[in-house]
């Protein structure tokens, strides 16, 4: 099977076979990162631009490491140090970048749909590294890879996503991804953070974490953004942590082989207690590790493979 898409804009547009191909490819790239010399010439002479309109440490570093391990030339453009601060529009930025013939543009943007817009204006492949509250497809893919590594299969697993679903692109991409791969998805969170008609996305909706924790093979905790306190969505972080945060007491109701995941960055003591984040069920750092392999796989599939016509 070949990967035929020009861009990776979201999980929604992917077929299960394409997701499978990405995960298989990622599996084969993992080994490179364990070598003393962590570099292969696969993408030598290719150019990858990382265009980040939002701050990011993990995702951006992960993309950059992935590209460099495949020998691509990488360039970083961030909103604070570029002509973006001079008022250049995304379309103009896209046209200017295209004039320099990059092979891939990795875009992180606070506005939903920005990668879709960029993809219409450039010949380069566009990878969505997070667009507003819409999608974060590479995060979902690395989460799938982590579940598959630890559980052997994704199909048939019950995955509980807990926290601020409404504002989470990670939740949206994971809901698409897990459903496509045959998992059962439960969500729990305060009603103020459960968006309208969420059940229509194919998830079972609960409010209290206690209602989903005992059923879950995998628990994904979502980051709570601290500024939500000022938006009438929750009374205080204190109450949020007590009712919706994952601590050892709540975890005691979980299955003995449960996996605890978190897309990071963690608010220790808010959505997850330090003991749980650092505890034996946590695979948070495995997720980060898998991020590099998944992003290598995507770069390879988008611009490295032979496309059969």
């Amino acid at each position, binding site marked *: 099977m070949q990967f035929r898409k020009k861009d990776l804009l979201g999980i929604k547009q992917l077929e299960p076979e394409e997701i499978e191909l990405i995960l298989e490819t990622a599996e084969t790239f993992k080994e490179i990162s364990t070598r003393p010399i962590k570099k292969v010439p696969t993408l030598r002479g290719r150019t990858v631009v990382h265009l980040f309109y939002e701050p990011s440490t993990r995702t951006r570093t992960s993309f950059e490491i992935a590209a460099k391990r495949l020998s691509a030339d990488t360039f970083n453009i961030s909103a604070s140090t570029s002509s973006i601060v001079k008022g250049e529009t995304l379309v103009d930025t896209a046209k200017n970048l295209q004039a320099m013939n990059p092979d891939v543009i990795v875009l992180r943007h606070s506005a*939903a749909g920005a990668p879709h817009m960029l993809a219409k204006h450039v010949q380069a492949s566009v990878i969505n590294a997070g667009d507003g509250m819409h999608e974060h497809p590479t995060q979902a893919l690395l989460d799938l890879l982590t579940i598959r590594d630890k559980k052997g299969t994704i199909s048939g697993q019950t995955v509980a996503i807990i926290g601020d679903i409404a504002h989470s692109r990670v939740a949206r991409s994971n809901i698409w991804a897990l459903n496509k791969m045959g998992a059962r998805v439960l969500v729990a969170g305060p009603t103020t953070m459960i968006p*309208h*008609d969420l059940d229509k996305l194919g998830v079972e909706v609960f409010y209290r974490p206690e209602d989903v924790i005992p059923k879950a093979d995998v628990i994904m905790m979502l980051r709570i953004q601290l500024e939500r306190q000022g938006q009438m969505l929750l009374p205080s972080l204190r109450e949020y942590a007590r009712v919706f945060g994952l601590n050892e007491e709540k975890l005691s109701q979980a299955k003995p082989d449960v996996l605890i995941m978190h897309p990071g960055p963690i608010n220790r003591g808010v959505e997850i207690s330090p003991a749980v984040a650092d505890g034996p069920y946590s695979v948070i750092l495995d997720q980060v590790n898998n991020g590099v392999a998944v992003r290598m796989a995507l770069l390879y599939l988008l611009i490295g493979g032979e496309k059969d016509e």
Partner: protein
Amino acid sequence: MSKLIRGGRVLDPASGLDDLHDILIEGSKISGIGLPGSLASESDASLEIIEADGLWVVPGFIDLHTHLREPGEEYKEDILTGSRAAAAGGFTSVCCMPNTKPVNDTSAVTELILRRAAEADLVRVFPVGAISQQQKGELLAEYAELKEAGVVAVSDDGLAVMNSQLMRRALEYAQVFDLPVISHAEDRYLAADGVMHEGAVSTRLGLREIPGAAEDVMVFRDCSLAELTGGRLHIAHVSSAGAVELVRQFKARGVRVTAEATPHHFTLTDEALESFDTNLKVNPPIRSSNDLTAIRQGLADGTIDAIATDHAPHSTIEKDVEFDYAAFGMIGLETALPLTLQLIDQGVLGPLEAMGKLTCNPANIIGVDLGRLTPGLPADVTLFDPNQDFIVDVNQFRSKSRNSPFHGWKLRGKAVLVLRDGKVIFSDRNSSG
């Protein structure tokens, strides 16, 4: 100089006439309507014959809700280009909203608009004045001065009046000058920084949402205040099922409330926003299929009196950006007719009902003696071909702006000849054959 419009299907919703008739125009007035061949001697050499075989002949359309952007944002539209767009769409009158720069809250701005409209000499332009000074929602604008200068209604369109006391006073004070108060019904706290309708699609797309309730609660408040004050209320661009039901209930109680719906709200649903096309970003937002059904029901049962475009021109500067950052609004003057005709094809409205929502009903709402084919009235007459298929091409629009999501749509029904005061303000006779 006389004109005889001959052989067309004449629809006059006010009188209920729908038949093959001739219309005689003398000077700027309609002088007669009658059975074919009954009105004038064809040997009269001074008589100009306008053949209308196969065409519908109706009162010129009246748009209650247009943004002409002048003064202040002439790069989007001006009174001349907006008037051309209106005429090409079959309109002979438009009401222009006051959210210009500066706001139309004084006679100086009203007079400027009317002077520009007279210079354009195309459609009638009826300015709408602001409810509050500078549309700030704090103090009443000077309705006496505005009325004397020529406004036909007041509205803070684009900005809901959040202060209920101010809205009450507007509904009271406007009665002195017999001005309807047009409500842009939206609770700004509930709408917050939303960009689309709240529902399954906004949940999928992760776009910030505007619930239908943001409209419902304000429609209820304003209807309630109209009941309290006896004022005349008109609800602009009804978009939610709840608003339709509220207007229906308050009308049944005898409250003086009228309502309009836009072609985009009775044609599109939020599913279309999957494309992230910023031309679909409008306020109020395009809502769900439930809301669409309710709006069509409201049009059918008369709850919604008028079809209005909310023609809102924006340039690529406002629209060729990320969805979150794009301005609200789409243009509509040049697509309103074929989209309204779809309601007839789909059995939502009869031909006379549909035409009434573009002619006599809006005329009644703003209290002008137009929108009827009556001898003695100004000869504002639109002839259109209901069977002409065409592909919408925004590059052919007379408007300065191109922000229409209907680009590329195959539609049916185009204005062929438009007369205002008996004068041809739009003609497409060659292309229609």
